[in-house]
């Protein structure tokens, strides 16, 4: 029972039931129309036959009188499929004919019987048997009445047959439809059951599970396909998240361990406690720095800083940044050269762009320290559709295969692990670029792969707005 009610809740079965009801209604109307029409047609034929015969009989009476009429009727009555013939007196008593009795008062007036009437035959066994007929009554000049009629059993039978045939056909159709719909609905239910089973497993945490596909390419398959694509994406994001949290755990636990070790050493040792405490503070400062950078990245990625976007003077920001870092570069025997197109405005966040560019220049100063070519070039050019801000150094660069890696959180090249830093600088730059609907590109500065060129591509305010 419950299975049937579940089945009935499927869309296919509901729609089918609706169509079934509508179809049955139409079919019923059709049955009544067809039988009604055929009945009328048959009655009309009957009347025509009766009218013809009545005319003939009238002619016989005119020519041969009552005896001729009797003979003619007797002869006619013997023929197979004979009509009904009655000769009755003026008061309605039956004088001759092939009818045992008639409805009383039927012969009172001449002309057509208004409705089919009941009569009994001589062959009828019980008194309750009766037949239905249609007749014309002729009133002769001597007051005798002659009834010419036809039994309506044949048309009635035909009508019954037509109706029966239609009912049987309809019944078969309904039954067939029910069977088919039951099958379809059950099939749909089964597939949905399989899908919900798979999704329950996925919800339980097994993200490698996929929804089943039948391979038929129908709507269920298409649904499964796009859901599977979504699951793939979620799985990938989840893996990325897991990797990042593993990294966070590692990159925060390591300095925490160092911190703890130093505190322990300071507690156990004697004399150099102040120096140890200073180291502890420096270590915790580095930790705080990492934390802040992580928080900053996630906030930028979450888009909470978007509210602070405005039209900013990118040229000014770049000039300020170059000016800020220029002495540091010089201190490290590097030359910071700037080529900035003046008066370029973009929609952005001054603070974040400044920090991103600062990170890039800071990286260049850090890694190009002992480069043969001590030049760090900062360039900003406005194109038709975008503004390109480039920081190029001649340091060791980043191998091609690692370029997409170093942007990830906490990823640092092995050679640079000895340098100070959090491994988050480029991640922040990337997040900032994403927030500005721009892109971050890493390339080599020199043809031999030496040096790192970082390009920040900002869409211009115009193209950004028309997006």
């Amino acid at each position: 029972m419950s299975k049937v009610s579940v089945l009935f809740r499927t869309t296919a079965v509901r729609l089918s039931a609706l169509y079934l009801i509508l179809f049955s209604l139409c079919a019923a109307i059709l049955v009544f129309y067809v039988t009604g029409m055929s009945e009328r047609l048959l009655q009309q034929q009957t009347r025509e036959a009766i009218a013809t015969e009545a005319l003939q009989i009238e002619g016989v009476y005119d020519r041969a009188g009552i005896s001729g009429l009797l003979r003619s009727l007797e002869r006619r009555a013997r023929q197979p499929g004979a009509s009904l013939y009655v000769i009755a007196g003026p008061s309605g008593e039956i004088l001759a004919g092939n009818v045992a009795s008639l409805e009383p008062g039927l012969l009172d007036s001449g002309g057509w019987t208004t409705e089919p009437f009941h009569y009994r035959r001589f062959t009828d066994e019980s008194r309750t048997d009766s037949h239905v007929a249609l007749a014309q009554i002729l009133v002769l000049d001597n007051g005798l009445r002659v009834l010419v009629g036809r039994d309506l059993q044949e048309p009635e039978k035909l009508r019954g047959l037509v109706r029966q045939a239609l009912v049987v056909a309809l019944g078969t159709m309904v039954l067939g439809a029910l069977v088919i719909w039951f099958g379809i609905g059950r099939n749909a239910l089964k597939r949905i059951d399989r899908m919900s089973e798979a999704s329950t497993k996925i919800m339980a945490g097994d993200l490698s599970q996929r929804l089943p596909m039948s391979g038929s390419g129908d709507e269920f398959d298409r649904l499964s396909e796009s859901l599977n694509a979504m699951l793939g994406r979620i799985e990938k994001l989840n893996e990325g998240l897991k990797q990042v949290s593993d990294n966070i755990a590692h990159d925060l636990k390591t300095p925490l361990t160092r911190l703890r070790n130093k505190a322990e050493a300071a507690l156990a040792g004697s004399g150099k406690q102040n120096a140890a405490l200073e180291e502890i503070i420096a270590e915790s400062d580095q930790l705080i720095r990492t934390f802040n950078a992580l928080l900053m990245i996630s906030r930028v990625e979450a888009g909470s800083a978007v509210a602070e976007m405005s039209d900013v003077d990118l040229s000014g920001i770049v000039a300020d940044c170059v000016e800020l870092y220029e002495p540091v570069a010089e201190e490290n025997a590097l030359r910071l050269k700037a080529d900035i197109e003046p008066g370029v405005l973009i929609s952005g966040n001054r603070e974040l762009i400044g920090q991103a560019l600062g990170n890039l220049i800071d990286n260049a100063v850090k890694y190009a320290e002992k480069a043969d070519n001590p030049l760090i070039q900062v360039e900003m050019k406005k194109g038709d559709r975008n503004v390109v801000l480039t920081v190029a150094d001649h340091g060791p660069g980043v191998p091609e295969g690692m370029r997409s890696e170093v942007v990830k959180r906490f990823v640092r090249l092995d050679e640079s692990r000895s340098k100070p830093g959090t491994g988050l600088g480029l991640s922040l730059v990337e997040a900032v670029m994403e927030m500005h609907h721009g892109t971050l590109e890493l390339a080599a500065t020199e043809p031999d792969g030496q040096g790192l060129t970082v390009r920040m591509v900002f869409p211009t305010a115009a193209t950004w707005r028309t997006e």
Partner: protein
Amino acid sequence: MVTRMKILIVEDDLEAAAYLAKAFREAGIVSDHASDGESGLFMASENAYDVLVVDRMLPRRDGLSLISELRRRGVHTPALILSALGQVDDRVTGLRAGGDDYLPKPYAFSELLARVEVLGRRKGAPEQDMVYRVGDLELDRLSHSVRRQGKEIPLQPREFRLLEYLMKNAGQVVTRTMLLENVWDYHFDPQTNVIDVHVSRLRSKIEKDFDPPLLRTVRGAGYMIKDDRTPDT
């Protein structure tokens, strides 16, 4: 006699508040403590404080609402907001609510102390002074010129602003982040020693051919410009 600075600390973490009170006392600053927003609001409106140090997240009334309510009542005591949130957008909302400075947690006490002292403005030059003087060093804000012992010292615009900020807060410690905020208007952590290099450049210009040194490095905190021969004012 120098009047001691009196501040109000509104902080719900009692341990942190006790630590701050002790540290401020050691630095010569008297402090009161309120542990929730409502009592903080009451104390700040009833008493005269030089500076308010307000935690952003407080029970009963949060720090931002405390400050904006104070400002609505016409109390303009300088307020420094401490926040565990502490990024660009939070700073902006904090300052918009009427705060005068913003310090993200966790912070170094030296940083907090330097900022509170600058907010209290018990030392240094008044805002309206057109010429700042420290010893024989003179900075003219109108003509953008700097002289020492009567000799003109040519400075880059940024170096001028750096010196201007240091002299405005003469006798007070200014931290590296304060310099970055006030001279470059950036609030991020510059990581490397960018500020130090700028300061040492400035120092070489104003001290190279002169005596005595005026611009000193305060270890673990920042910088201070001060003439040792003149007593604290």
